[in-house]
């Protein structure tokens, strides 16, 4: 049984800060890391960028918020992750603009973005193939949603955050979360069709 760890950093003096049990924090990270990777991967469409953004979010959570109450970790973690994802997207756009005139850089960038999915497609059964295709179509349509709708849909539906937690992770009101989510579902239903 591990004992609470005296975390480094300034968080200990903050109101509401608590002692950290490293094992609690590790269990929390283990419970979110794979889903967080898939969410980041859907948006960034690149394994390395998705891995880096999840690792950044884990590091930042531990460094700055480890001593916050455990109930705050999930929305905080996803808030940091969403910021990291946006940061990677912006950097990619900037790189694209800066190196557009340099064919070698441009083609390398495109090749990175098109890296194949990390999902292991080993079982070559028809159901598996159909599921893979359906998932690919869902990811394609999700990627075309406005960013806030994308976030609301993935946090609510994939990660299972409730409205208050999603609002915390997105830094907006609960009403906005409901609006973004409902628009996302509506648009996806239209684009994916009744059969989906």
């Amino acid at each position, binding site marked *: 049984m591990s004992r609470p760890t005296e975390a480094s950093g300034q968080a200990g003096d903050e109101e509401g800060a608590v002692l950290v049990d490293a094992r609690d*924090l590790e269990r929390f990270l283990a419970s979110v*890391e794979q889903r967080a990777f898939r969410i980041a991967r859907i948006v960034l469409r690149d394994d390395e960028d998705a891995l880096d953004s999840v690792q950044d979010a884990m590091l930042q959570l*531990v460094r700055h918020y*480890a001593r916050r109450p455990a109930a705050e970790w999930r929305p905080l973690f996803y808030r940091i992750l969403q910021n990291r994802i946006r940061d990677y997207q912006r950097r990619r756009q900037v790189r694209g603009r800066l190196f557009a005139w340099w064919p070698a850089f441009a083609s390398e960038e495109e090749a990175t973005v098109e890296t194949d999915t990390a*999902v292991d497609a080993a079982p070559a059964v028809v159901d598996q193939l159909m*599921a893979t295709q359906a998932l690919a179509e869902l990811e394609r349509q999700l990627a075309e949603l406005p960013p806030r709708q994308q976030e609301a849909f993935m946090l609510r*539906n994939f990660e*299972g955050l409730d409205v208050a937690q999603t609002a*915390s992770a997105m830094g907006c009101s609960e009403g906005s979360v409901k609006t973004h989510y409902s628009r996302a*579902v509506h648009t996806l239903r239209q684009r994916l069709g009744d059969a989906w």
Partner: protein
Amino acid sequence: MVSTNNDSHPRNALEQRSRTLFEASVRNLSADIRSRLTQGRHAAIAGLKQPQPATLHKWLPAAGAAVVALAVTAVLFTGAMLRRPASEATLAADDLALLLEDDSLDLIEEIEFYAWLDETRSDRS
């Protein structure tokens, strides 16, 4: 068809199916990805147990690297920027700063989150 999950959020067929597909894709993550996520988690937890160096020491190597990188990049792109209008050159400089920055959003994240938290708490009280 509409059902309800554990946070009383009603789910229609699209929401259920997309959730099922997502869960399957998480279960089917490759061993390599799982392993790298585990390594990342261990590295993050290790940071909890180690004392952080003084702020100035922590930033010195990063600041040095950033200055060198900025100087090299500035030399490389000076010609291209000089041929652009002034506003575009300023934008390009901002872009370079973005590419070179690392943790600049940390403080913003903290301020935004706690401002939001305070607002929510005062709304509820």
